[in-house]
């Protein structure tokens, strides 16, 4: 029972990690908390639903096109709405993301209505079943797909950021925008890129979560809260922190649901945020920011 819950937690946690990773990618470079993140992802989920379920396009093409929409939304929001006020009012940027949230929610209601739309799993084959010291563990193929995609994404991002010139330029921009410009790095491009990657990660998370959550305008609300919690837990400017935070939260969340009460899951996540902010505001892997005085 316990082992099954831990495995289930790891799977849920990998989805939280993907959401948290998207939030952190955008925040690291532009220092903007994107409150519209889940709703941008929801639009991608609807695009996926329309292509895959309504128009009958194959899963991979529908997935790729919906993720591309996520990329495009990330670019449009950063380039069109946030950048014009970037050096004028950082607070306005956060308010803009709240505005985007409301617009996208209204847009989804207008286009698709508020009914729950069902999206089938990509993989419906025989689940992986194995016996362990605590009993029998069952892992559906869809869950393996989720973990596989998250794992591949994390590996790709790690290699990109660590070993390519563009990745290094990306990290440099997130640390010191002015110095990065002095190196010849197009920091504006990196800012757009961070939001495009964030949009892609959110879209992927929403599509992968859709068979469980169904597709509706507020489908990503819980996932966004969990992703936010995971990012705070790990440290909002830390990519490894987002991943570890997500996975840890997933396991804790499942254990609370299994052994305490399902109703306490969200409460517990919020309690974690408050506790971390009180004890270690920069998160477990985050670095405290020093300012010149």
């Amino acid at each position: 029972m316990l082992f099954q819950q831990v495995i289930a937690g790891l799977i849920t946690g990998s989805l939280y990690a993907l959401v948290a990773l998207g939030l952190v990618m955008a925040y690291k470079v532009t220092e903007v908390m994107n409150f519209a993140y889940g709703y941008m992802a929801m639009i991608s989920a609807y695009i996926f639903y329309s292509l895959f379920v309504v128009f009958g396009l194959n899963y991979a093409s529908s997935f790729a096109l919906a993720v591309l929409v996520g990329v495009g939304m990330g670019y449009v929001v950063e380039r069109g709405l946030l950048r014009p006020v970037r050096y004028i009012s950082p607070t306005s940027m956060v308010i803009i993301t709240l505005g985007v949230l409301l617009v996208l929610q209204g847009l989804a209601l207008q286009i698709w209505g508020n009914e729950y739309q069902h999206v089938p799993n990509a993989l419906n084959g025989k689940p992986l079943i194995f016996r362990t010291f605590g009993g029998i563990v069952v892992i559906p193929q869809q869950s393996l797909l989720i973990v596989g995609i998250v794992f591949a994404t994390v590996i790709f991002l790690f290699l990109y950021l660590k070993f390519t010139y563009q990745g290094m330029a990306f990290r440099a921009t997130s640390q010191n925008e002015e110095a990065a410009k002095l190196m010849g790095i197009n920091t504006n491009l990196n800012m757009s890129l961070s939001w495009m990657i964030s949009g892609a990660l959110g879209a992927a998370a929403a599509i992968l979560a859709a068979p469980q959550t169904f597709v509706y305008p507020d489908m990503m609300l819980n996932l966004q809260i969990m992703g936010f919690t995971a990012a705070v837990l790990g440290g909002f400017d830390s990519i490894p922190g987002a991943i570890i935070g997500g996975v840890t939260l997933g396991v804790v969340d499942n254990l609370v649901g299994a052994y305490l009460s399902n109703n306490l899951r969200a409460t517990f996540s919020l309690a974690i945020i408050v506790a971390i902010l009180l004890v270690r505001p920069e998160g477990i892997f985050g670095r405290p920011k020093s300012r010149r005085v």
Partner: protein
Amino acid sequence: MATEHLLEIKNLWVKYGPVEAVKGTDFWIDRGEIVSLLGSNGAGKSSTLRAISALVKSEGKIVFNGRDISEYPAYKIPFLGLSMCPEGRGIFSDLTVEENLALGAYTVRRNRKKIRENFEKVYSLFENLADKKSQLAGTLSGGEQQMLSIGRALMSEPKLLMLDEPSLGLSPKLVDMIFNILKEINRNGTTIFLVEQNAAMALALSHRLYVMQTGKIITFGTPKEIDLNTLKKKYFGGV
């Protein structure tokens, strides 16, 4: 073409809202020179440097190597051969020494051979850095961070190296060392433009000096033409 200046500034203005930091400044720098811009706090020295690098908006004409760069965005300027070590060093603290230097070569990143050669040049110039390649830049001492900042700027083989207060916060011994290295860099063919408050060191190092006060160049000349004591009394409040 051979007689044209490497950098020529005409009627440069920098404004921060209603505050005029630089007020119609004109000056030039020739190839192979070490030129210093002196002045007290708030004279407009750093704003001048930041305007040349396009880190702040400015009005006026900035011509570098025969090209008008007044409207260039900041990130395109290093590609022309103009590097800057900003005030406060501007290193990437969470990146290693080697990653910082590699980013200095961002403009020549496709030329692997050149990058390797420049790594060797920088490490021979700053031996301390060679021993700390894998160390995070933020953990280096102040002097080492300044070396890293200069070394990083050299990685792109600039025609003009601009430095904003390289002696700030360093011990006299380290300042001597940094200034000797700057001389060597200049001997190897790089033109240097230095913004400094350390007038004595700037006089000892430079071929020519400009003195700035309240946003305007008020005097210029060679170290022989500019007397240090007069300079201190007149422009630095007798410090």
